[in-house]
């Protein structure tokens, strides 16, 4: 999963700590984070991906699964990010430490059914920050497209593995990719450390 995290590039130390905590939690949950606070926003995107986007005109927003904005301190580009995120049907988490800092226009847009589903406006405390973040990850995973295999990446196999996959799926209705997805699902369900991590933070 790939998320875009936006927050002011300059903020008081207490807020900076929160930003770091948000990014750390995502990393520890296995999420790739792109951010306006990083020098390069390309993260795990390959040069080939970037060149393709460049030539086709595809928006970078298409390459991510959700947007997280820390809006306690005003971030000028937050309105644009929310607008373009909604246009591309991406889930958005807008975090703030005080409800007072939420723009009334955002509250207004929440009245629309589609936007209400995608836009999460949350006030958070030290105690419930992790919970809010993990809830958001689950929302993305369980969302309309979350259960469809839509994420593509290149995985190079050895001849031996390829021969095994061929043997395993031969004369079955499963494709090699289906079989691999099933195996990974099993591993996720049986991984006690990962299940504990999810349970502890929800």
């Amino acid at each position, binding site marked *: 999963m790939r998320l*875009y995290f*936006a927050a002011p590039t300059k903020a008081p130390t207490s807020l900076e700590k929160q930003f770091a905590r948000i990014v750390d939690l995502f990393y520890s949950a296995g999420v790739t984070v*792109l951010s*306006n606070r990083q020098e390069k*926003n390309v993260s795990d995107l390959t040069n080939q991906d970037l060149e393709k*986007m*460049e*030539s*086709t*005109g*595809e*928006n*970078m*927003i298409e390459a991510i699964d959700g947007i997280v904005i820390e809006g306690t301190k*005003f971030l000028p*580009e937050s*309105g*644009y*990010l*929310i*607008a*373009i995120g*909604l*246009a*591309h*049907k991406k889930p958005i988490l807008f975090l703030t430490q005080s409800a*007072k*800092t*939420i*723009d*009334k*226009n*955002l509250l*207004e*847009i929440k009245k*629309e059914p589609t*936007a209400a589903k995608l836009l999460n406006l949350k006030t958070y405390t030290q105690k419930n920050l992790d919970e809010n973040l993990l809830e958001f990850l689950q929302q993305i995973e369980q969302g309309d497209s979350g259960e469809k295999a839509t994420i593509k990446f290149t995985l190079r196999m050895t001849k031996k593995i390829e021969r095994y996959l061929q043997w395993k799926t031969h004369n079955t209705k499963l494709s090699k990719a289906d079989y691999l997805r099933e195996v990974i699902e099993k591993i996720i369900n049986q991984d006690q450390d990962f299940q504990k991590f999810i349970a502890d933070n929800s």
Partner: protein
Amino acid sequence: MTRPRPKVALIICGSYPNIKPDQIASWVKSLSELNIVAEVKPFLIFQKSSTNVESQNWLELFQIIKKNAGNFVGFVVLHDFDNIVYTAAALSFLTLGLNKPIVLTSGQTAKDQSQFESRANLINAIQSASVKINEVCLMFGNKLIRGSQAQFSQIEAFNKFDAPLEAIFGRVDFGVRIFKKLLIKKANGIFKPSLNQNILTIHLQPDLDYQTIAQVIDQKQGIVINAKHHQHLPEKLITILTKNQNLPVVICWSQKNENEQLAKIKNFISVDQLTWPTAVVKTMWALAQTKNIKKVKDLMATNIAGEIL
């Protein structure tokens, strides 16, 4: 709390949205994403396919922009693909001195592309119109392109138009990034925001209808010839066009034409660094500034609005 949003005018000059004029204000209000980015006020020029656009419409567009320049930080023109580069070129010359961003985009989508494309183009255009740039530009896909240098892209992509690298002065990633060093300073001078509509355009091809051309040119105040795929002009055409030495003839080549014979003809003006739509519109604009062929020649050679490729 409510934060102040930049005020942007949205001028409709095409078939999108296909709704009654009295429903436009509520349509804009319903585009809730837009309203987070800016306070958008709609204006209507016309609601038909922009294949029907005429220079009169460009003048109306200019009048709306001029009249409202003080009330908005920028202007977005919603146009169909047809003629959009002509409209962009016209606005580039007409709005000289207004110092406002004018961003053209389309509500049309290609058949194989999803519906969000037009909404995304519109949001990106509104965002670009909120930035302090003195440019007339096109916003499609992930590029902000100088309008007077834009050309239709043959590649099936979100980027419907392309231009030389120096004319792509904005990119969309997780925001609209403007490359300020690529913004140009426009020509100084007091120019009339006017266009001479009385021109004839000729596209070179075998078997041109010379008889009709000969009959018509007497009523015209300028000729623009598309010689983009040629190196010479047909002799018959040269004969007709040199009869009236006071008739400006702009010849649009794809590269510098070294033909000495043509260079000696007083009323011939060769241009090689303009797109065809810009050559046509710039000729209309130049002929509205002056009738003097030498001055027209000077204007055509000068980079007035960043149009020189």
